[in-house]
């Protein structure tokens, strides 16, 4: 199948998101679509598949102008979209999820369970996925859920598959499995639109690349004819120097020390410490238990045993408000679900953990609030016209900066960052790294969970590797390599 999209325009109300995008897809190619957060990549694909109607422009499929009315119609015509946000029903089984909206039924209108099971099994085998079909989707890890989505898409006999950040939640292993699948799909003549913020992947798997900026196409090139720096320059519109900014490392006293943290079946005997000004990276496979450990430290989940020491004093943290009082901040991995109140303004989100300090006499002081918020917006270079704009309107990277700002506001001793750059574009990523560095220079201790090995290697002073809920190794910055981390993460084979 061959698709040509020309001069596509799309506005949401007065917000002009696409202002003349050109994009074309050849049969059997893997075409990367890159651009900063909010550049309009997802919107472009939503226009193609009929979720949004275009305002202007033409779409030609195999030489014929074609406009789909809804995603279902697109799918029936061989175009499948694996969305950036997972479309998973947590309470349904894996099998039910696989067939939602396209169940097989017999002449009486009843479900054909056997056939559906057999089909699902076959598909899972192809992907070498081994999730039981009657498992509830909510007890699957994010990575498993992503694989379910991919399997679902592959079952439609698609001729075009759009993958919107498919690897954001996948481990290296799962990613390499996905790449195998992509390669074999390509051989069958299937075309793939591949949207990702991970540069390595683009160069590893794609044939061509289109870069978008501010709702326009900047350039389309064959992959061998371009390089990392050029792509970044085109995306950001300016030169971006080193990817991981340098920092003067100066470590101080121990801020956090945990001993023997245990929660049955999730993690066991976890002990480590973090120093003033130190960034401790936490690596591991999907579902290794990294998030769970941090949630327990922050008082979000109960644990069975273990001690937490903060600045040499033993503390008991039973709920987040206690953690906040002790000067701990937690930037969760799911920004929209746990980090932000999307309808709230930037300002209201930022002051949330420090509310009472703005109301010494009971009433919130608008002036001091404004000063505080303006200061944070400036310091974190949040791109917004006004602090009173609803945060849901900002791009992903800017949203993430507001989450960080919120925690900087409490004057933290310890910041826990769980996948701080997930789904964030290169430009914003670098600014977040810069910010982490500034914080450590002021003596803040940082724990950073990340599934991106380059990030772990580039940013951490020390690296903890978690395997099945246990710390399987600690690596100093100097000794760490991708291979060593992967070995520890998979249990040391």
């Amino acid at each position, binding site marked *: 199948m061959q698709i040509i999209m020309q001069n596509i325009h799309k506005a949401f109300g007065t917000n002009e998101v696409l202002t003349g995008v050109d994009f074309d897809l050849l049969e059997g190619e893997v075409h990367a679509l890159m651009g900063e957060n909010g550049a309009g990549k997802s919107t472009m694909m939503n226009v193609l598949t009929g979720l949004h109607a275009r305002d202007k422009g033409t779409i030609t499929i195999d030489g014929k102008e074609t406009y789909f009315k809804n*995603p279902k119609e697109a799918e029936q015509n061989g175009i499948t979209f694996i969305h950036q946000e997972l*479309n998973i029903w947590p309470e349904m089984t894996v099998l*039910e999820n696989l067939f*939602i909206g396209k169940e097989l039924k017999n002449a009486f209108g*009843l479900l054909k369970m056997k056939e559906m099971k057999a089909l699902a099994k076959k598909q899972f085998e192809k992907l070498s996925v081994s999730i039981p079909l009657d498992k509830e989707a909510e*007890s699957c890890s994010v990575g498993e859920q992503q694989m379910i989505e991919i399997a679902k898409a592959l079952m439609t006999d698609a001729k075009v598959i759009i993958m919107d950040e498919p690897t954001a939640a996948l*481990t290296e292993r799962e990613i390499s499995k996905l790449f195998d699948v992509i390669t074999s799909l390509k051989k069958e003549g299937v075309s793939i639109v591949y949207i990702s913020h991970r540069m390595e992947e683009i160069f590893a798997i794609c044939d061509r690349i289109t870069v978008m900026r501010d709702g326009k196409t900047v350039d389309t090139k064959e992959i061998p004819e371009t390089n990392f720096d050029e792509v970044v320059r085109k995306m950001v519109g300016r030169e971006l120097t080193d990817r991981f900014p340098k920092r003067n490392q100066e470590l101080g006293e121990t801020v956090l020390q945990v001993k023997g943290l245990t929660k049955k079946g999730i993690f066991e005997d976890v002990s480590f410490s973090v120093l003033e000004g130190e960034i401790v990276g936490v690596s591991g496979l*999907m*579902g290794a238990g990294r998030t769970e450990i941090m949630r327990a430290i922050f008082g979000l989940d109960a644990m069975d045993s273990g001690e937490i020491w903060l600045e040499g004093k033993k503390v008991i943290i039973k709920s987040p408000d206690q953690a906040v009082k002790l000067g701990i901040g937690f930037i969760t991995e799911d920004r929209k679900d746990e980090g932000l109140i999307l309808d709230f303004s930037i300002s209201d989100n930022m002051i949330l953990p420090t509310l009472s300090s703005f109301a010494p006499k009971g009433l919130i002081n608008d002036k001091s609030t404004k000063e505080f918020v303006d200061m944070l917006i400036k310091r974190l270079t949040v791109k917004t016209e006004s602090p009173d704009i609803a945060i849901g309107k900002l791009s992903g990277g800017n949203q993430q900066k507001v989450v960080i700002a919120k925690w900087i506001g409490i004057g933290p001793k310890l910041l826990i960052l769980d996948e701080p750059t997930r789904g964030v574009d290169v430009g914003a990523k670098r600014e977040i790294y810069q910010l982490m560095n500034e914080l450590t220079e002021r003596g803040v201790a940082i724990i950073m969970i990340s599934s991106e090995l380059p990030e772990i290697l580039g940013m951490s002073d020390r690296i903890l590797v978690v395997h*099945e809920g246990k710390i399987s190794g600690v690596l100093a910055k100097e000794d760490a390599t991708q291979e060593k981390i992967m070995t520890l993460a998979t249990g040391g084979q």
Partner: protein
Amino acid sequence: MNSIQSDSKPGMKNMMNAVTQKLGPLLGLIILVAIVSILNPSFLEPLNILNLLRQVAINALIAFGMTFVILTGGIDLSVGAILALSSALTAGLIVYGFDPIVAMIIGCILGGLMGMVNGLFITKGKMAPFIATLATMTIFRGLTLVYTDGNPITILGENYLFQLFGRGYFLGIPVPAITMIITFAILYIVLHKTPFGRKTYAIGGNEKAAFISGIKVQKVKVMIYGLSGMLAALAGAILTSRLNSAQPTAGTSYELDAIAAVVLGGTSLSGGKGRIFGTLIGALIIGTLNNGLNLLGVSSFYQMVVKGIVILIAVLLDRKK
């Protein structure tokens, strides 16, 4: 990788959960029946059980429709008013000279249409189900009163089939109970064995994703509210036959009993999770309470207190499992 290892345990846990989810309400019912029959053995007499089934039928039918609605994450406060309006219209048709059975069928269709009106406000009008059906509840009730001028409609004649429908027996079983069981069987299949049922769950679980997955969310919702209205009208037909008249105030606050039955049956008010079998059990629990407390001579004031407490306990236990 990891998935393989972590399976064995969650698998077991899942199964246990599934068992308690399925059996939790049933267990509650059994305990309740045991208590009542120890205190008053006449509860278990076949005649009383049949009695109870007949009494339960009306609430159960409404609650079946409510189950679909709640599974989509909605709520339908208008069922009691739809029951009354469709019942009044049915009776009006009978008085006008229609064959009672034909009138009943028309009544059910009208009930279905009223439900679809709800569905349209909720989907096309993007209104919260609570407020849309609160408004139509008031409107339908008002229309009933306007139509009947506040008086019951009587003189429904002596049509045998019509009288059978609410009062009769078939093979010794009250006809309303049979209607309830047949309806249950059909809806069980619809909910658990057809794409329509899957879509119902999918909408409740994640509406946006359902839409993106090509489910015609609006159409399905309108049909579900229509189903709810139609079942309320069916319940109304039973009531009309039983009372041999259409009462303008019939069905007042039936929506609350139906919702209670659904929730007692383990269906979550936030949608996407639950089973219609549970609703049947939930309706039986409420019926047993009403019937049992009466048999035990508990004053109606204390009955309210006991019913409230039972709902609290049942839901709390359900949370803990």
